[in-house]
């Protein structure tokens, strides 16, 4: 069932997996369909936002391969 806080998630600092989990909860609650039309529409809005967050997180990931040098406390590019 729908958790109390699902409708009131602060979306700013969600990690990918949190956003994904909330999204899955939202989808489940919506699929169960035991809620009013107004709530359904509200959940749909939440879900759409969460989809966008997940996609953004995935797109934001930056490729970087570095090696830490304990002697000078620096990160160096790692020559493969």
């Amino acid at each position, binding site marked *: 069932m729908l958790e109390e806080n699902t409708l009131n998630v602060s979306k700013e600092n969600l*990690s*990918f*997996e949190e956003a*994904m989990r909330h*999204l*899955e909860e*939202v*989808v489940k609650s*919506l*699929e169960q*369909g035991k809620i009013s*039309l107004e709530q*359904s*529409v509200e959940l*749909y809005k939440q*879900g*759409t936002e969460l*989809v966008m967050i*997940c*996609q953004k*997180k*995935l797109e934001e*990931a*930056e*490729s*970087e*391969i*570095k*090696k*830490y040098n*304990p002697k000078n406390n620096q*990160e160096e590019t*790692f020559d*493969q």
Partner: protein
Amino acid sequence: MNKVKTVSISELNASVSRFLRANIDLSKYHIKGELSNVKYYSNGTIYFSLKDAEAQISCVMWGNLAKLLDFEAKNGVEVLVKAQVRFYEKGGNLQLEVQQMQASGFQGEIYQKYLEDKERFEKLGYFSPERKKPFPFLPKKVGVVTSAEGAVIRDIIKVATKRFHKPNILLYPAAVQGESAVPELIAGLKYLDAREDVEVIILARGGGSREDLWCFNHPDLVETLYRCKTPVVSAVGHQSDHSLSDEVADHSSPTPSAAAEFVFPEYQVLESRIDEQNSRLKQALNNKLYQMKQYLLTYETMQAKALESFKYRQKESLNRYKEKLAPYEPYTAIQNYKNKIAQFEQKTHFIIQRRLEQSYQKKEQFAEKLDALSPLKVLKRGYSRTLYEGKTLDSVSDLKKGADIEVELYDGILSCQIKDIIKK
């Protein structure tokens, strides 16, 4: 001047072999050591190393002798052996040919300590599944503690790139065997654990001998791993090697590549997961809307049906009332009265008719009678009527002499005066 001779490898090895046989006789000694790298062959022959803290030597025990052993020759077991030194000419290796072997104490000291450490950590709950931390499935940055040389880090990068396309990896280079291994591995774990952006740590080492991997059983390393706040995957050696690091880590992968597979999600899988949720979201809303629409339709139909049936029932009861009221309806009532009046009329007419007929018959009878009794007829026969003061006289008693009377005859009237009255 000395002439330099040339010898072949075969000759050299043969002479080394002869020298050893002639000069080193171990028949009066027990050699003490710990078994390691034990390998059984199908014919029963065992190859292994004997070692102490500083040195080791390769050994072989042929199958026919090995099958007489009264204990299981396995790594870590401390043994006493009777053996001869042999120089394997073909390979140029020195090895002990073991004739007899007995376990001295059941397990070796190092192995014993390992078992004690293991038991202690187990009791402390270091290995319990409940305290294993969950892993994020999209870690921002993955720290790796391993050697910067060799295949391990390269395998990890390769797998990570293949799966996630754009992995973010920070390597902390550390010795993975020898004296500096334990402090360097610990320093690496602590450094990466302290970093905010590192969300997962991989502790990795490729396959090696049991001795090479032994540092991963070090209690200090176990302690450090236990205290890490970042989830750690341990991938030490191959699948068959299981170290205390593997036990205490939040997850243990059989190989470094497997660790990378565990840590890095497949980009496409995540994408399709999002897509799946997205389409399910849309579908669910559509279903809800459809459901509401159906509900409304059903409701409308129900309402219409209810109305229809209500109307029908009203009509039915109205009809029943109509039937009951029908006789009292003005039109019907009038009609009824009219009918009654008509019936009366008919009856009356009939009665009057009969009366008239009866009257007519009576009249006829009267007429006949009247005719028979008619005074005119009497007068005609000679009789007359006497009138006094307009009244017919039937007696003489009231008359006086001299009174004027009239005598009516058939064809006229006589005006007379009474001369005398004679009574009878």
